[in-house]
């Protein structure tokens, strides 16, 4: 196989050599040129064929492509908030998500704990282009309130996750730049190689100016993400672990750990239950469904 590839590349570059008068000479020339050129190719070709921006985008597109077709899911999750003194507080939620073809996903989330926010629910329609639509339902007043799109940089339930960290990650919302490949820096995937890429949010209301992410080259699973704030200083690090595969295809981390390096606070998010293809439809993600969601 390697030989074949070798030959192909030689034929492609040696078109100039073909013009030489002697077939014999040409053959020697091929032999002479071939080996160093092959080495040259493996070193430089990826860069010349593809800019770092193109490669970064290609990785993001591939990750998205591999995640297509999951349909819908339901989940139960727990968030453990820890302040810098090590004191913890627990939040419990349940969620439903729907994959929308041609646009961003739709999701519903309802809170179970702490008890004063029990029954509060959030409906999000994320969009590939333009701002997401988001509504919050307050059960005591039976009121549905619109949340402004700039809320994406705000804290989610007092945790170190912001709304945008938890919203569906559409390829179109970022520009990309591939940096390098290196061994994955997280325990679970440490035997694997990771793509290291930068992404830059298109939307100015994002809380970040730069995001550096490590994705394993086998399954495009996120291993580590570093977030840089508007002042370009390192704000947070997110580690994903306990990967489980659903429907023989879709990898989901059952645990997310985010640490805020500026405040010293951290949050752990654990999925207690995750189900796919539960039969949810568009009609389960409108405002009536939001008010009904228990």
């Amino acid at each position: 196989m390697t030989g074949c590839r070798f030959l192909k590349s030689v034929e492609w570059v040696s078109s100039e050599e073909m013009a030489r008068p002697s077939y014999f000479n040409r053959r020697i020339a091929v032999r002479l040129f071939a080996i160093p050129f092959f080495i040259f190719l493996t070193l430089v070709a990826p860069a010349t064929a593809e800019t770092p921006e193109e490669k970064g985008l290609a990785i993001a597109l591939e990750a998205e492509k591999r995640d297509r077709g999951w349909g819908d899911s339901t989940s139960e999750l727990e968030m453990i908030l820890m302040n810098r003194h090590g004191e913890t507080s627990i939040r419990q939620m349940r969620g439903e998500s729907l994959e929308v073809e041609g646009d961003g996903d739709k999701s519903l989330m309802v809170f179970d704990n702490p008890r004063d926010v029990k029954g509060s629910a959030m409906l999000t329609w994320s969009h590939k282009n333009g701002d997401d639509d988001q509504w919050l339902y307050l059960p005591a007043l039976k009121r549905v309130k619109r949340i402004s799109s700039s809320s994406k940089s705000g804290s989610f339930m007092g945790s170190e996750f912001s709304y945008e960290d938890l919203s569906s990650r559409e390829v179109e919302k970022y520009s990309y730049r591939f940096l390098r490949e290196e061994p994955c820096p997280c325990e679970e995937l440490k035997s694997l190689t990771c793509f290291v890429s930068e992404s830059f949010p298109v939307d100015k209301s994002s809380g970040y100016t730069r995001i550096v992410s490590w994705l394993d080259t086998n399954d495009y699973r996120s291993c580590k993400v570093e977030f840089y704030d508007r002042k370009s200083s390192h704000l947070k690090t997110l580690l994903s672990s306990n990967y489980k595969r659903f429907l023989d295809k879709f990898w989901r981390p059952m645990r997310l750990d985010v640490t805020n390096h500026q405040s010293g606070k951290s949050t752990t998010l654990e999925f207690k239950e995750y189900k796919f293809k539960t039969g949810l439809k568009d009609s389960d993600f409108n405002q009536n469904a939001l008010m009904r969601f228990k």
Partner: protein
Amino acid sequence: MKGVVGPAVRLMWGVLFFIALLHVESHAAEISGYIEGEARIFPSSPLYDGQENHSGSVAVLSEFYQELGPTSAMTITPFARLDSGDPNRTHFDLREFFFLLHGEWWEVRAGIDKVFWGVTESVHLVDIVNQTDMLESFDGEEKFGQPMLKLSIAGDVKGIDLFILPLFRERNFAGEGGRLRSEILVEGDEAAYESVNREKSVDFAVRYSYTSGGFDLGISYFKGTGREPSLRLKRNDMGFPEIDAKGNIHLFPYYEQITQAGVDMLLVLDAWLLKLESIYRTGQSDRDWMKNDFASSALGIEYTVYGVAGSGADVGILGEWVYDDRGDSAVSALNNDLMAGLRFSLNDVSGSTALLGYIHDYKNSSSFLTLEGSRRLNDHLKLELQGFYFLFSPEDDPSWVIRRDSFMEARLVWYF
């Protein structure tokens, strides 16, 4: 309402028993709610006889939720309060008692329920389905449960809600011991109606809603018994004001037949929310007891800065302007007023929030300050503070009669 409470309570116990039976089945059932203790302090001495400088109160709300099938459920939410200051504030209400059934694009709710319409914070002009529980909270945010049959048909971005409201709920008024009342007591139990069917007159309402990329629109129409009564002087057979044994005269609420068309709109522009509520109402008497059609509008903006100065805290700025074209004859104190507010959310583990508001009347300069704050003490316990301060109340403003009733209240709420 008195005649309704007894049977309703009996029915509720019956249904609870039914739930207990069902509970054996595998359908999801849930009980949640809160118990709260409340202390209110009025720093200024009262204007009227019988009023106190402080009051203590306890309240309980419990929601029983029972799933009946994959697309049907029942919710029962009784509420009760015991108040030391005002016997009228000691009250029971079924906030909810409804059956819900839904299909893919439709939903039916039958029973007692609450519905909220609108987008603004300082006033809720279009919100008309439920009667306001005036004694529960001074800001008018609390509502009585309303018997209804509601049909919703909803698409992705538009929907229509149809309501048949078979039984009218009367408003409640402060008793002799209560603060935040006029000198002349309103006898809520002696209500009079324009309709011969009194509270059994059937009301209708409909609301169309539409949402599209950062824009929400609601258009509503209501026909029936107005929730806001006109207050009339109690008179004897001779037509003179009736004077009781203590030498006092009394008012009674008069509920009129009205129609109201309303529109509410919200537009998201980056970090800005632009809001508009507008109503046109016919059939309602004004402060001078004249039936005058009127229009009223509220225009608002809200801007929020997330993660202020590198902290996780959010700060929101609110501005709203409320206008009622009846001017001084408006029943509402907010007839040409500006509200400016600041909202803080610390986004800490305690979920600490505070809202500071200032309301100013352009015409007569009446003004007041509001303060709301809350902080979670643990997963079940929450401390809430609320304050209201009358800065200036001229004699021609509805707030004149309660000018000495600035107050501060603290609530300790245990959620279960």
